[in-house]
């Protein structure tokens, strides 16, 4: 063999050599995980459940929800498990009183200010942390226009009421609605729209402090924004603040019924990428299309055609172009 031609095994494949193992203790259990694992990942290998809102395995952690905090012995402050990497001989407590107290505060403040009614698993979570968001008072009336809030200009809050992020639902197109009354500012939509997946950058966080909100540029309606309607923000939204209009309308009509939906994986009928489409069929009609997070082709992402372009199969009677 001549030296100039690389042997087959070295034809540029990424390095997949095994990583160094790190020993640590979590809740009294000793374990070894590969270097570079997060505490959250290490907990998963012990089947220790850590609540999260802003974490998703397909997005880079942004550490904003503070729900996944754990106590690391020797550290001054609690650490977000979703992004803190394991270190040799680390000792971690995931359910210490300090951890539970901190999570409870986060949950109560969120529940007092945000509509969490469509956040999966939230009812159980609030119960398990003995949360009483009502102790902050009845919800304040919705702000007239949160999009117009100017940094530094606040009316003093009325201590008799719990401030909320409530505002009218934004319905400005036929594909999806934005109900920011349900937004916990987890940044997932911003990440998915931006550098982590779609690179469209149609939305970002505007405003400061309690005025912070997800917004298009200059708060323009979606059709006037850079949005390409991939709906990848819907796919990552943990609270239902972003929702396909079909689902929103069915919920409003009281006929959204996930328990009766048949869920089938097939392949998108459009281009040659071959995205897996998970079709949610209710009463014989497709009511939603998603893609599995773990799918190697999509990582849960689709484009406008895959996520919304399936309606043609449901109305065959009219002649077509």
């Amino acid at each position, binding site marked *: *063999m*001549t030296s*100039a*031609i*690389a*042997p*087959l095994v070295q*034809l*540029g*494949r*990424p390095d997949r050599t095994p990583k160094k193992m790190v020993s640590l203790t979590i809740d009294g259990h000793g374990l070894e995980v590969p270097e570079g694992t997060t505490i959250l990942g290490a907990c998963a290998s012990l089947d220790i459940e850590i609540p999260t809102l802003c974490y998703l395995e397909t997005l880079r952690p942004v550490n904003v929800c503070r729900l996944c905090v754990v106590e690391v012995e020797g550290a001054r402050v609690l650490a977000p498990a979703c992004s803190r990497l394991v270190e040799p001989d680390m000792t971690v407590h995931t359910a210490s009183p300090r951890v539970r107290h901190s999570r409870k505060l986060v949950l109560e403040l969120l529940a007092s200010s945000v509509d969490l009614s469509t956040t999966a698993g939230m009812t159980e979570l609030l119960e398990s942390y003995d949360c009483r968001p009502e102790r902050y008072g009845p919800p304040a009336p919705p702000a007239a226009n949160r999009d117009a809030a100017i940094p530094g200009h606040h009316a003093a809050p009325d201590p008799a009421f719990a401030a909320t992020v409530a505002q009218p639902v934004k319905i400005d*197109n*036929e*594909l999806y609605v934005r109900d920011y009354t349900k937004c916990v500012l987890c940044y997932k939509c911003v990440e998915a729209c931006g550098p982590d997946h779609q*690179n469209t950058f149609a939305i970002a966080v505007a405003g400061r402090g309690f005025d912070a909100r997800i917004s298009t540029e200059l708060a323009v309606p*979606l*059709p006037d924004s850079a*949005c*390409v*309607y991939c709906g990848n923000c819907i796919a990552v939204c943990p609270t239902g603040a972003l929702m396909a209009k079909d689902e929103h309308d069915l919920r409003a009509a009281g006929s959204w019924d996930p328990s009766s939906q*048949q869920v*089938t*994986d*097939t*392949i*998108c*009928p*459009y*281009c*040659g*990428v*071959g995205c*897996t489409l998970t*079709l949610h*069929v209710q009463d*014989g*009609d*497709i009511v939603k299309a998603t893609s599995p997070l773990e*799918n*190697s*082709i999509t990582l849960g992402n689709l*484009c*406008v*055609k895959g996520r*919304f*372009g*399936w*309606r*043609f*199969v*449901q*109305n*065959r009677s009219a*002649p*077509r*172009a």
Partner: protein
Amino acid sequence: MDPRRTSSAQWADVWLGLRVGSDIALSNAMAREIIHAGLAHEAFIGNSTTGFEEYKASVEMYTLEYAEPITGIPADVIREAAHAFATAERAMVCWTLGITEHHNAVDNVLSLINLCLLTGHVGRWGSGCNPLRGQNNVQGGGDMGAIPNKLAGFQDIEQDPAARERFEKVWNTKIQPTYGKNLTQMLHAMHQGEMTSLFVIGENPAQSDADAHHVVKALTGLDHLVVQEIFLTKTAELAHVVLPSTASWCESDGTVTNSERRVQRCRKAMEPPEGARDELWILSELARRMGYDWKTPTAEEVWDEVRVVAPDFAGGMSYKRLEELGGIQWPCPDESHPGTQFLHSRLWETPVGGRPAPFSVVVNEPPTEERTPEFPFLLTTGRRLESYNTGVQSGGYDSPLHFGEALDISPEDALRLGIAEGDIVRITSRRGSVLAPAHIDRALRENLVFMTLHFPDEVKTNVLTIDVSDPKSGTAEFKACAVRVERASVGAMNAELV
């Protein structure tokens, strides 16, 4: 590299906004620069390729200075692209119809293959040539032999007697060792009266093919036209018999192959509308009435037959394994084979495994129609993100991105012709004339206009396009025809729609 500054181009570090139809001038100039800069992968060329000397001589005339006026790209930008491509650890060339919808489509592709051979960017992880497929199963159609010269698994009908024999044994019939006709040749044969019957499955040639008047004339002249469809398309309206079928991607089971050769399972997720039949049932029923009993096989049974007649290609791809592995990339000859992530790694064996890869001598040829004083614009056609082909599917949903058809024109040309955004213009080629609203688009250069075929009921773009095609691939030159653009009135557009 794109004549239009597309949204992808806006993300690029460098955008090479080449003139329509100057692809080979660009590739050959890059090749010459790579060779002269000493960046060619000589060990790979020596071990794994043939025809390099002839190729080298053929690109010698394509200096950067020669290519600049042809391509419209500054010489130093071509140089930069050539050096970046040649020196990258991994590089791939991805293309779509901008390369293949030309009268010299195959030569365009060969010129890109040449670049990959020259630099060794082939047969390695993260490198190579990637024609990106525009339909979810256009690859699978070829895989299954729905092309005139190959049987399933790309086994040649004329040149592979062993393959023919394998099929003959399983199918219990004689396979004629002659190539069939491609679409362009079929249309020609219909016009000549040599082809009198046609069975169309899930395609809308009356609106999708170049020179639409010509195509509709061919279809209406047939003795018998059968269209198997999920809608009453414009093509189906011309048919003597329409066979309503299921939407195969969600109302029946089967497989499709994506752009990376990954065979994946389609699954039945819902019941079809009343009267629509599974496509396998329709074909089996047709066979039965012609005297063959196929017993209406399931999709899996048909697939298992593919595995028998094309064992090197799909032998290892059982439905069970396709489920377990989430799809498998062909070739996959046996059930212990993991599938093939990239092709042509044999080229890196020393000595080369199998036939060395040939360089091809290709010369730059401009589009068939060039701009003239009578037709001073070049029209190039393409797609938009939210729409799909003739709109049969994508017309079914309400997208804020649907703006209808328009003629995209550069601000400079619009200013010169006194055209404002939304003005109705008449676009005329040597074959026909259509009206459309104008959209002023900074993504376009002067003298180039752009349209799609997504809204053929409003604007029959393919009335304009030219029915010249690549003799080797049969692909029509959708990407270039000469047109003139004139201001018209809204009344004219309304009158034409009526």
